[in-house]
């Protein structure tokens, strides 16, 4: 290449960099909800949800305990430290391969407590039932919650029931709040991630979300897939006992692993660089995702954690995860770097590099 061409290219690169910087400033600006009405995108865990939470909820309730926006709030009550969390479950269908809405309701909240480093102890269970909902189905849901609570080692200690008119509540909605005891010194949190850290995932991704999509029966796709819903408190306890250098844990639910990676990059103002080849994905998840044009990175899990750990302890962390049945296929998927801050980059199987950004809403099946 001659000098004129290379000079032209470097001018082009610096002009492009100016634009990238401008975009970065816009992205960091104060979030605003532009829509007048709530849409489905606001519930999917992506950018729209994030904007809604920051612009409406955080703005109204703002306090230091809420601001970290981690999976659970960490409360200091003098001699005791507690983790407190809540989650609502509106999944359809209520019964799917691998579990029920009841399993999700228990495991989801247990997991939010576990990834805060707490020992989950007690749950609440609030039910919103639709008029006409079969009692047999309610019993089935509640029995599965009982079984899940037993496995997780927690108790449901209080609850509530409401019934709404036919046509609302899609059968059954459940809210659970959970309380756990924090006896680990220090605080886990994605904002503490730093260059050199390793990023791990505890198992294959995307199983729950794809299972649900297929279970809705609209897609005429048959696959041997079950939801990965499971309580991870035992897995986490083992990890934290073995590896003190764990900086953060996150429960990869709505929005998938991609959302967690972006939360890390944003909270700690670092780059997260992952290798496509290293990310565990089952063949059936890959096949279904290809058929639909969806990226498994954005598909919900319900029993997988993302771990940020000091680079020097990555191997120990992997060993600890793999020694537990739920972490048998744990893998190191990438590293934290200083630059470019706030971005998640993926090194593709193919050897190229691209960004993994937050989606606006749910991953929509593409046909194009």
């Amino acid at each position: 290449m001659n000098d004129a061409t290379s000079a032209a290219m470097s001018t082009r690169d610096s002009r492009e960099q100016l634009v990238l910087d401008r975009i970065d400033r816009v992205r960091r600006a104060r979030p605003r909800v532009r829509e007048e009405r709530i849409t489905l995108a606001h519930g999917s865990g992506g950018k729209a949800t994030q904007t809604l939470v920051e612009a409406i909820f955080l703005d109204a309730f703002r306090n230091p305990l809420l601001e970290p926006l981690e999976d659970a709030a960490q409360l200091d009550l003098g001699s005791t430290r507690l983790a407190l969390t809540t989650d609502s479950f509106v999944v359809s269908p209520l019964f799917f391969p691998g579990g029920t809405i009841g399993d999700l309701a228990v495991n989801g909240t247990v997991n939010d407590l576990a990834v805060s480093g707490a020992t989950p102890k007690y749950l609440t269970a609030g039910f919103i039932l639709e008029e006409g909902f079969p009692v047999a189905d309610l019993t089935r849901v509640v029995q599965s919650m009982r079984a899940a609570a037993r496995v997780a080692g927690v108790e449901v200690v209080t609850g509530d029931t409401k019934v709404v008119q036919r046509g609302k509540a899609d059968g059954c909605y459940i809210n659970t709040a959970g309380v756990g005891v924090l006896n680990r010194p220090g605080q886990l949190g994605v904002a503490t991630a730093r260059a050199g850290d390793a990023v791990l995932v505890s198992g294959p991704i995307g199983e729950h979300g794809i299972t649900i999509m297929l279970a809705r029966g609209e897609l005429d796709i048959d696959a041997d897939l079950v939801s990965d819903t499971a309580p991870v408190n035992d897995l986490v306890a083992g990890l934290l006992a073995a590896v003190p250098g764990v900086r953060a844990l996150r429960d990869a639910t709505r929005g998938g692993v991609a959302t967690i990676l972006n939360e890390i990059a944003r909270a700690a103002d670092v780059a997260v660089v992952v290798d496509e080849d290293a990310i565990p994905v089952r063949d059936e998840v890959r096949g279904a995702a290809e058929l639909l044009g969806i990226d498994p990175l954005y598909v919900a899990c319900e029993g997988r954690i993302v771990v940020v750990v000091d680079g020097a302890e990555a191997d120990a962390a992997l060993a600890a995860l793999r020694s537990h049945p739920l972490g048998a296929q744990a893998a190191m998927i990438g590293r934290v770097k200083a630059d470019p801050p706030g971005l998640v980059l993926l090194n593709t199987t193919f050897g190229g590099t691209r960004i993994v950004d937050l989606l606006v809403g749910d991953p929509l099946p593409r046909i194009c």
Partner: protein
Amino acid sequence: MCLAIPGEIVEVGADRPDIAKVVVSGVKRSVNIGLLSEPPVAGDWVLIHVGFALSKIDEAEAKAVLDFLEEIGQSYEDEVAALRDSRIE
């Protein structure tokens, strides 16, 4: 308008001759095969787009492309090896 992916036919409909079952990476789906010039048989590979099989995949042609790529890959490796060897001297 392009998302179309390859799938293997595992079953051609007995009662509905224009429907077949395809498998993609362990995942099964029904597709309409009415656009294919000849009905496929189990073991054929087809290109699937929005629930229809658009085209049968020609294995010979597929192999030809892979052979071309293999050859490019080989000659590239030969060149890299030659480059490496020449450095030693």
